[in-house]
């Protein structure tokens, strides 16, 4: 029982971060019809800012680490949002619904941002001091309180975004342009404005994921690559642009990661995931919950 509880806890921990990261990617795709390869760098930028600011705030402001962490999250979210706004205004805005153009553009942004992050933060792995090292036992499985809080925060954040998309006017507009942007424009929805808001929502989800995992793992400018590969697998399995599909696929991939890592090894798991994606693309190209156009 303890083993299954541990595997369950591992899945929830991994899946909640995948979910946040992938939701951002799928929202951007849904609204703008662009695949943002620079998504991982925005995630890494937020994590690096938190890793740099937490020790600095603790030392210079003399506040407890929880406060430093909270302040650092606010600063990182603002900074990454501004960065996202710049990327949109000077890049993505010009390539809305242009898959080829946005593909090349976002690859360029990926390389540019990675270079800038290495230049500013160096490539040396950074560690955020732990906020809590207490461990909790659940049915024999063990998890740190910090990880549990991170999972809870990720779930709350994801639920809020889903709520925003389902129950608010803004969310309705996002869904409308995602389904048929020309029809949405005929209804008076300003597509450019909604695309910008959708892009910022996606960027903020990546930044939030980065901020949340910064105290859990070592942080480097390259950390986004691993998550980006997983996120692409998730959005393809879930269905490009499908919010509920992304949530479901995040935990499916996390479960595969957990079971594959435990019963086989991480490399075999990754190969198995790509095989699954290929199979799915043949049998159900629109993904588990995507629409077939």
């Amino acid at each position, binding site marked *: 029982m303890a*083993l299954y509880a*541990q*595997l369950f*806890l*591992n899945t929830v*921990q*991994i899946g909640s971060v995948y979910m946040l990261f992938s939701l951002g990617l799928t929202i951007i795709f849904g609204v703008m019809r662009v695949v943002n390869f620079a998504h991982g760098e925005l995630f890494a930028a937020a994590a690096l800012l938190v890793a740099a600011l937490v020790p600095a705030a603790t030392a210079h402001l003399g506040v407890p680490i929880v406060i430093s962490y909270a302040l650092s999250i606010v600063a990182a979210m603002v900074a990454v949002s501004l960065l996202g706004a710049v990327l949109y205004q000077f890049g993505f805005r010009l390539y809305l619904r242009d898959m080829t153009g946005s593909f090349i553009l976002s690859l360029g942004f990926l390389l540019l941002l990675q270079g800038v992050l*290495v230049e500013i933060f*160096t*490539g*040396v*792995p950074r*560690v955020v001091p*732990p906020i809590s*090292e207490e*461990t909790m036992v659940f049915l024999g499985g*063990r*998890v*740190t309180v910090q990880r549990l809080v991170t999972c809870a925060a990720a779930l709350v954040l994801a639920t809020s975004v889903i709520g925003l998309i389902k129950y608010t006017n803004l969310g309705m507009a996002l869904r409308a342009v995602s389904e048929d942007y020309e029809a949405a424009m005929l209804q008076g929805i300003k597509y450019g404005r909604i695309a910008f808001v959708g892009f910022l929502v996606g960027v903020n989800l990546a930044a939030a994921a980065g901020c949340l*995992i910064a105290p859990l*793992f*070592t942080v*480097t*400018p*390259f*950390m986004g*690559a*691993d*998550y980006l590969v997983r996120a692409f697998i998730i959005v393809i399995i879930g269905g490009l642009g499908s919010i509920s599909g992304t949530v479901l696929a995040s935990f499916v991939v996390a479960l595969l*990661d*957990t079971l*594959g*890592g*435990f019963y086989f*090894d*991480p*490399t075999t798991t*990754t190969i198995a995931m790509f095989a699954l994606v290929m199979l799915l693309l043949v049998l159900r190209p629109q993904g588990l919950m995507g629409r077939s156009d």
Partner: protein
Amino acid sequence: MKWQNSALAAVLLAVGLAAAPQIGIAAETLKLGLSLPLSGNGSTWGLGMKWAAEAAAKQINSGGGIKADGKIYTLEVLAYDNKYNTADGTKVAQTLFSRDNVDFVVGVMGTGPTQALQAIAERRDKLIFTTAWGRNVKGPEHPLTFTQAHTSSESMPELFGYIKKEHPNAKTVALINPNDATGKAVEADARAFWSKIGMNVVMSDFFERDTTAFQSVATKIVQAKPDIVDASSGPPDIAGQIFKELRTQGWKGIQVIAAGGSAATLTKTAGEAADGTYMGLVVDFASPAATETQRRLNGEAEKVLGEPLNPVHVSTWDATMALKAGIEKANSLDPKKVADALRTVVFESSYGPAAFGGAETYGIAEQILVPVTVAAVRNGKIVELARVKPKELEERLKVKQ
């Protein structure tokens, strides 16, 4: 017009005479290459190696450079990021040998990047110093490759033997390594050396170097119930994450990093979970047992790198000093002649007098001979538990005397 020509000739003669001695003693530049992980996992090693090579070059240059064949050479260090993988190591090899025309590489990290360098170096007769633990990078078929730090054959018998003596009840071990040429090579050696002292390897797993979540790996290890977990060639920041995760999941056993390298990085990543970890390839360079050079370098490294010096860092200092001795003994910059000289020369390393040997193990003298240490983390600090001088080095020093 005649007097004008004479004056011009006199001026040219004067300039020529004034410049001649300068030209005669002007030092030429000798470029030294480095192929290191300067970003990502392993950069804690790479950045320190770069710093130590530059410090050695600075000391040699300020001491008058390297003298060979009637010329004086000052050193210039060129370091490139191999990101600890073969693909980037290949790019670095092309840059060093095809663009920079480097003849001597005083530091490579990673078995894959070393093999990438060898692929070009061996066709063009370039000399390489490497820290790679892969056994297949050494041997008579690689006569221009020298190992600048201890590898598994030197480090593991001492380290594992010490642990077995301290923990006689330990019977089982789990191995965890990166899924690349270095990891595969070290895993095979670790498996062989643990088995040799009667330990049962109950599991062995590999991870990709860009992995960030180690929960599943930790769960697998916990279920295998090993007495010892050896994160063999895992970079200290990754080993730290694995040990931390193991502690979270309730495993409390003996932790080992055979190719330890940096206790400071391990402690920073693992926190309290680092405590008690046995490490090979770690030396307390601030202790009285260290040489004066090592204590000085350690002090400078702490200021520049923000962490104490470790044997991986200092290996480029030692390689640069060995190269100086080799070139001066050969009285030539021909890498083949320098390699021959390196097999017999006794040079002043950071550890004191050192040499290259290991012909009995590798079939050719290519392995640096410096003291082997066993260390452990105690309350966040590294403590040296044993220090053994290689017998072959002692014999070489006796012969020299």
